[in-house]
C-alpha cells in the first residue's frame, strides 16, 4: 500500500504545476485538463492533466496500457473525451476530429507509418493536399517546398526516392516532413524509436533538437528511460490511466522515473553472478541460409554455446538474425553447413525432434510463431509438447493434467489476468511473452534460442523476463540470445557476437568492449580491423 | 398448447380445401415451376381444368428428390386428385399411391400399376423425328447436336427419334449430317446445359436440340449468345418465343392436354386407371408452328416434313424408341 501511494507523495513535492485558479495557460502550447475517457469496462484516462510548454520536448511515459496513446488520440481528435478540456496556446479548443487538430497546428507521427510504399517521398508528403497549377499536379512546387523543409530542420531525404526503397529511419523522416508540410507547430511522436537502430535514434534526437530550436513543441511518447534523459525537457508519467508524476528532466533520474512508472523500485540492469560455464552443448559450423526471396541471408556463421552461459547476438534488424534462429530451430532449410546439438548433427531433422532432444525456442514474433492467439492459454501452454506422455495418452489429451500444469505456470510466472481459459489474443504483449517463456522453460530445455524476448514490452515485464532468463542460465541451460536492443545484450550476455549482412563481425565480452565498438561492428566493421586501428 | 395449434392448423387446411367440388394438387419435380417446359406445361393443364370445371388448383414444388414421397403423401392427404409428373417420380409414386386408394393420381411419363393411377405416356420419338429431319435439312455445317437431361426412357425416346430423323434425311437426300450427343446429368441446371451446348457449337454443330427440362434453357441462351446461324430446338412446350429467331422449332409434347384429360375424366366420372399413350395421331406430340422461323425454311423441306408426318400417322413409318430398335432401323423408301 505504501508503495502505491509513495510515488504520488514524491511527485507532488516538485511538481511543475499551474494552479488551477489562475488559468493563465498562455505559455503552454498544450494543456489537457482533467481528461476522462472511459472504454467499456476500463477507465483509460482518469482525470489526466498534461502541461506542455511552448518550445519544449515533453516526454509522456508509462508502461503499456497506462493510457498514453489514448490521451494523445484525444489530442489528435481520433477519439473524444468523456469530459475535460483542451487548451491550445492558452485558448480552449474543441478537437472533434483530426481536421480540427490539423487546423490547430497539431501533427502526429504514428508508430506504424502511414505511407504508401509504392509512391515517392514527394507524393507521400503532399498526399491529400496536392499543390496544383490549374488542373495539373504541380509536383515541382511540392518538391521545392520539401527541399526547403528538409534543409531548415535537417531532415535529409531524397524527394524522388520511392518509400519502399528507403530505410526505416528515412521513412520516419518522411512522416515528420509530412506533418511539418501541413504546418504543424505541435508534433506528437508515438514511440518513434521502437523501430530504429542506435545510430538512427541519435539522428532522430538531433532532428528533435533542431525542431525545438526552431520553436516547435514536441510531445514524445516512449517507455525507454535513457531516451527521456537524453533528449527531453520535462516528463509526464502515467500509470493505470492516471498521472503519477510531472517533473523536469534535469531534476530527476532513471531510477525515479522507473519507480513512478511501475509503482515500485525496479532493477534497471539485472543482477547476475558470474556464469558457471559448462561443456559445449550447441554449435553451428559454416551455416548458410537463404531468406524468403531466395537471397542468401546467413553467409557462413560459426558459433557455439556452452551450458550455463548466455551468448548474445547483436545487430541491426534484417542482417540475418531471423534466418539464423529459424535455421537453428528447424523452421528454415539449411543450404550449407551443420547444426550440432549434444554432439549430434541435427541439421536436417524436424522441429519436433529438436524439441524432443531438449531444444527450446522463444520466437522473435510472438504472434506469428509463439502463440495460437485463438487458443485458450491451457492449449498454448502445451504447444510443442502436446504429444508428450505428460499431456497425451496415446491419442487423447490429458485435460486435467494440462489444466493443472497451466494453472501452475500462470501462478509461477504471474500471468495476468490469472485465468487459463482466456484466449491468447486477449492478453497484453507482456503477458503473451510470459506465456511463451513459461512454456518453453517448463519443458526443461538444455539449450534455448531466445529471439527479441522483450520487444515492445514495458519495463516491469522486461525486468521479470530478464530475471527468468538469468535464472535459467544459472540452472545450466545454454542460451543463444538475439536482440536488437543493445541494452539487453549488454545486461544479459556473457559473450557478445555482432552480426552484419549474414556474417559475424567479431566476438567480445561485455566488460571488455564499449557501445561505440559494438555500434561500429553493427555498421559493418570487423573487430580485428577496429582493434588494429586502435593499436 | 402446441397440440391445439397444430390441430387447429390441420383443421384450417382441411376446411380450406373442402368447399370446392374437386381439389387438385400438382406435385412438380425438382425442375419446378418456371422451367418453361415440362412442369409449366402440366401446370397449364391444371389451370385449364380449373377454369372449365369446378376444380381448385394447388401446387407443391419439390426441392430435391427426397421430397417426392413426403410431397406426394401430403398432397394425397388433402386432395381428390394428385398430378405427378416425371419419370423420376415413378418409384416414389409406386410407394405412395397404394396408401391412398381413395385419391386419384394422374402420372405423366411413367407407369405405376395401381387402380387409382392413370398413366400418360407420349411417343416423344415421333415429334423428335420431325425436328431431327428439319435440323438435318437446315444445318450449314453438317453437324447437329443433342443435349439430354438424364438418360431416362422419355429422354431416350427423344434422342432416338431425333437421330433417326437425321439419318432419314441423310439417306433420302444423300447427305452425311452427324449428330453430337451429350447428357447434362440433371433437369434443373441451365448453366451446365449452356456449357454443354457451347462445346457442341465449338465442335462444329450449328443446331442443338435440348431435351433437358430446365437445363435446356441454357441451350436456348447459348444459341442466342452464339448469334446468327446458330439455333436451339426447344422441348415439351412451344419454346420458340423464348428467343425469337434463335429457336428453330420445338418438339412438343402436350403434357397440358394429358393433365387436362386426366382431370376431365375424374370430373366426368370416366377415370379408370391404366396407361394411355398419346401420339402424333392424337396431336399429343408434334412440332411447334415455327412462328418466328418458318420463313427461313425452304418450301420443299416443309413439304417433305408434311409427307413424313402423314406416313407416321398412317403407320407406314414407325419411328424407333429404344436403342435396339434404333440400331435395327431401316429408312423406308418415301416418295415426296
Amino acid at each position, binding site marked *: 500500500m505504501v508503495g502505491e501511494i509513495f510515488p504520488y507523495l514524491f511527485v507532488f513535492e516538485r511538481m511543475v504545476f499551474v494552479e488551477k485558479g489562475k488559468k493563465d495557460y498562455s505559455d503552454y502550447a498544450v494543456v489537457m485538463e482533467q481528461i476522462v475517457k472511459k472504454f467499456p469496462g476500463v477507465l483509460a484516462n482518469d482525470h489526466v492533466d498534461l502541461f506542455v510548454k511552448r518550445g519544449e520536448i515533453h516526454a509522456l511515459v508509462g508502461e503499456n496500457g497506462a493510457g498514453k496513446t489514448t490521451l494523445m488520440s484525444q489530442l489528435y481528435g481520433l477519439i473524444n473525451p468523456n469530459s475535460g478540456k483542451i487548451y491550445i496556446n492558452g485558448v480552449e479548443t474543441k478537437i472533434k476530429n483530426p481536421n480540427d487538430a490539423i487546423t490547430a497546428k497539431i501533427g502526429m507521427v504514428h508508430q506504424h507509418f502511414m505511407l504508401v510504399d509504392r509512391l515517392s517521398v514527394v507524393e507521400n508528403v503532399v498526399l491529400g493536399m496536392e499543390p496544383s497549377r490549374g488542373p495539373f499536379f504541380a509536383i515541382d512546387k511540392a518538391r521545392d517546398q520539401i527541399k526547403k523543409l528538409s534543409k531548415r530542420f535537417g531532415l535529409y531525404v531524397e524527394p524522388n526516392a520511392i518509400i519502399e526503397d528507403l530505410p526505416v529511419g528515412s521513412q520516419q523522416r518522411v512522416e515528420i516532413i509530412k506533418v511539418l508540410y501541413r504546418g504543424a507547430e505541435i508534433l506528437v511522436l508515438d514511440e518513434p524509436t521502437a523501430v530504429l537502430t542506435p545510430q538512427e535514434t541519435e539522428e532522430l534526437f538531433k532532428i528533435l533538437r533542431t525542431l525545438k530550436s526552431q520553436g516547435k513543441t514536441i510531445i514524445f511518447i516512449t517507455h525507454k528511460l535513457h531516451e527521456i534523459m537524453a533528449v527531453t525537457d520535462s516528463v509526464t508519467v502515467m500509470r493505470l490511466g492516471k498521472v503519477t508524476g510531472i517533473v523536469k528532466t534535469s531534476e530527476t533520474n532513471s531510477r525515479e522515473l522507473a519507480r513512478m512508472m511501475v509503482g515500485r523500485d525496479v532493477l534497471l540492469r539485472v543482477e547476475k553472478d558470474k556464469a558457471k560455464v559448462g561443456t559445449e552443448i550447441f554449435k553451428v559450423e559454416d551455416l548458410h541460409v537463404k531468406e524468403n526471396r531466395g537471397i542468401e541471408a546467413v553467409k557462413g556463421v560459426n558459433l557455439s554455446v556452452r551450458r550455463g552461459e548466455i551468448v548474445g547476438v547483436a545487430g541491426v534488424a534484417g542482417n540475418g538474425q531471423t534466418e539464423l534462429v529459424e535455421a537453428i*530451430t528447424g*523452421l528454415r532449410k539449411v543450404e550449407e553447413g551443420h547444426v550440432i546439438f549434444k554432439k549430434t548433427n541435427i541439421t536436417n531433422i*524436424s*522441429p*519436433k*525432434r*529438436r*524439441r524432443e532432444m531438449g531444444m527450446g525456442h522463444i520466437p522473435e514474433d510472438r504472434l*506469428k*510463431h509463439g502463440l*495460437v*492467439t*485463438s*487458443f485458450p492459454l491451457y*492449449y498454448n501452454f*502445451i*504447444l*510443442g509438447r*502436446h*504429444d508428450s506422455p505428460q499431456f497425451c495418452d496415446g*491419442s*487423447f*489429451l490429458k*485435460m486435467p493434467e494440462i489444466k493443472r500444469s497451466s494453472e501452475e505456470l500462470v501462478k509461477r510466472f504471474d500471468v495476468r489476468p490469472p485465468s487459463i481459459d482466456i484466449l491468447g489474443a486477449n492478453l497484453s504483449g507482456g503477458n503473451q511473452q510470459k506465456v511463451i517463456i513459461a512454456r518453453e522453460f517448463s519443458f526443461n530445455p538444455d539449450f534455448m534460442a531466445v529471439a527479441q524476448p522483450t520487444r515492445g514490452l514495458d519495463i516491469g515485464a522486461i525486468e521479470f523476463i530478464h530475471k527468468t532468463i538469468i535464472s535459467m542460465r544459472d540452472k545450466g541451460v545454454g542460451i543463444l540470445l538475439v536482440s536488437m536492443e543493445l541494452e539487453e545484450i549488454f545486461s544479459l550476455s556473457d559473450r557478445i557476437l555482432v552480426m552484419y549482412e549474414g556474417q559475424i563481425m567479431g566476438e567480445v565480452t561485455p566488460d571488455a568492449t564499449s557501445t561505440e565498438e559494438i555500434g561500429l561492428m553493427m555498421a559493418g566493421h570487423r573487430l580485428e580491423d577496429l582493434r588494429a586501428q586502435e593499436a | 398448447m402446441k397440440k391445439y395449434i*397444430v390441430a*387447429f*392448423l*390441420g383443421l384450417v*387446411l382441411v376446411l*380450406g380445401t373442402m368447399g370446392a367440388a374437386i381439389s387438385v*394438387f400438382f406435385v412438380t419435380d*425438382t425442375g*419446378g415451376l418456371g422451367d418453361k417446359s415440362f412442369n409449366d406445361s402440366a401446370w397449364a393443364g391444371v389451370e385449364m381444368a380449373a377454369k372449365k370445371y369446378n376444380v381448385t388448383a*394447388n401446387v*407443391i*414444388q419439390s*426441392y*430435391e*428428390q*427426397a*421430397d417426392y*414421397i*413426403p410431397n*406426394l*403423401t*401430403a*398432397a394425397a392427404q*388433402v386432395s381428390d386428385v394428385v398430378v405427378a409428373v416425371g419419370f423420376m417420380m415413378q418409384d416414389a409414386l409406386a*410407394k*405412395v399411391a397404394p*396408401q391412398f386408394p381413395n385419391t386419384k393420381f394422374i402420372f405423366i411419363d411413367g407407369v405405376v400399376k395401381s387402380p387409382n393411377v392413370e398413366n400418360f405416356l407420349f411417343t416423344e420419338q415421333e415429334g423428335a423425328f420431325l425436328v431431327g429431319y428439319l435440323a438435318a435439312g437446315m444445318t450449314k455445317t453438317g453437324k447437329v447436336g443433342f443435349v439430354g437431361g*438424364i*438418360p*431416362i*426412357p422419355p429422354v431416350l425416346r427423344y434422342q432416338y427419334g431425333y437421330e433417326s430423323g437425321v439419318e432419314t434425311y441423310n439417306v433420302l437426300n444423300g447427305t452425311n449430317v452427324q449428330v453430337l450427343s451429350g*447428357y447434362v*446429368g*440433371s433437369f434443373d441446371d441451365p448453366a451446365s446445359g449452356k456449357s454443354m451446348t457451347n462445346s457442341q457449337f465449338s465442335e462444329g454443330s450449328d443446331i442443338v436440340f435440348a431435351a433437358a427440362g430446365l437445363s435446356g434453357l441454357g441451350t436456348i441462351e447459348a444459341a442466342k449468345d452464339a448469334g446468327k446461324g446458330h439455333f436451339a430446338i426447344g422441348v415439351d412446350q412451344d419454346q420458340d418465343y423464348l428467343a425469337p429467331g434463335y429457336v428453330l422449332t420445338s418438339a412438343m409434347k402436350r403434357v397440358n392436354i394429358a393433365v387436362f384429360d386426366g382431370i376431365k375424366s375424374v370430373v366426368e366420372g370416366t377415370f379408370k386407371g391404366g396407361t394411355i399413350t398419346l401420339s402424333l395421331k392424337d396431336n399429343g406430340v408434334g412440332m411447334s408452328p415455327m412462328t418466328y422461323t418458318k420463313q427461313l425454311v425452304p418450301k420443299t423441306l416443309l413439304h417433305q416434313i408434311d409427307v413424313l408426318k402423314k406416313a407416321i400417322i398412317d403407320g407406314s413409318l414407325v419411328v424407333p424408341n*429404344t*436403342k435396339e430398335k434404333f440400331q435395327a432401323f431401316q429408312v423406308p423408301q418415301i416418295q415426296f
Partner: protein
Amino acid sequence: MVSRLKKFYMNDKIIVPVIAVVVSLFIAAIVMLLIGKNPFIAYGALIYGAFGTEGALINNIMKATPLILTGLAVGFGFRAGLFNIGANGQLIIGALLATYVGAHMSTFPFYLSIPLTLAVGMVGGALWAAIAGWLKVARGAHEVITTIMLNYVAVFIANFVVNGPFQAPGGVPKSPEIAYSARFPDLLTTGATWLSAGIFVALAAVAVVYVIIEKTKTGYEVKAVGLNPYAAEYGGISISKNTILAMAISGALAGLAGTMQVMGVYYRYLGSLGGGMGFDGITIALIGQNDPIGIAFAAFLISSIRTGSNQMQIAGVSKNIVIIIQGIIIFLVAANRLVKSLMFWKKGAEEA
C-alpha cells in the same frame, strides 16, 4: 457441469445464429404480408409440416441425417483452416463405392455387411478429399479450386458408372439395389415414409467429431494448423500431414452422408443422389459456427424449414419464401458483426 455448458453456449456462438433466425423469420413475414399472404397461417403450416405429424417428424429427421454429416464435414474442414467445397463429390464417391460393396453383400450377415459398407463409403469420401489435401501440400493448389473440380469429376464418374457398367436393368440411370443385409433397419413406418437407423449414425458422428476436436491430439494439431500454421510448425506439428488428414476426415464424413442415403433411403445409387447436400453443408457449418453440436442443431433447423415448407406450399405460400428465409439467415450469420453491433447497440442504450 450445467453452468459450464451454459457459459460455453451463452456466447456469440449461440446468440448470433438465434438472432439471425428470428430476424429472418420476421423479414420473411413482412415479405409475405406484402404479397398478401398471412404469415401466421404460413408459419403455422411450417411448424405443422415439420413437427405436426409422425410422418412429418420422420421426414424431418430423414432430411436432417445427411445434412448433419455434410455440415460436420465442412465444419471440420473449417476448423483446420480448410474450405472444403467438395463435400458433394466426396459424398458421391462414398455413396457409389458403398453401393457397389453393398450390392455384393447378400451372402454376408448384417453384422458384417453394415459396418463394412459404412467403412467403404467413408474411405471412399476420405480418399477423394485426400486428393485435394495432397494437391495443396505438394503443389500449393488451393483446396477451393481443386475440390470444386473434383466435384465435377465425381459427378461424371457416377453418371458413367450408373449409365453403363453398373446400371440396373430398365434403361434408367440407377444402380442395382444393395443387399438386404446391408440396409439399415427401419425404426418406424408411416404411410410411404420410414425412419431409418441412419440418424443414430449421424448423431454418433457428432459425438465422435466433438471428441476428436476437443479431446484428442489430432484435434489439437488440426486446430493449431488451421488457426496459425506458423505457430503449429514452430510447435513441431506437421502442416502437410495434418492438412491431408483433416481433408480425409472431412471427406469421410461427407462420404458417410452419401452412404446414409444409400443404406437408409434409396438402397441404391440414384442419378442425382447428391443433390445440393454438399453445399448445404457449408450453410449448416456456418450457422452452426463450426461446432459439432451447433451443426446438429443447424441441420435440424434447415431440415425443419424445408420439411415444413412443403406444408406451407399446401397453405398457398411459395417455396421461394423458404429460400428467402434461408438466405437471410446465412447473410446475418456471415455478417455476424452486424448482429453483434445490434446487440451492443442495445447494451449501450441500457447503460445510458
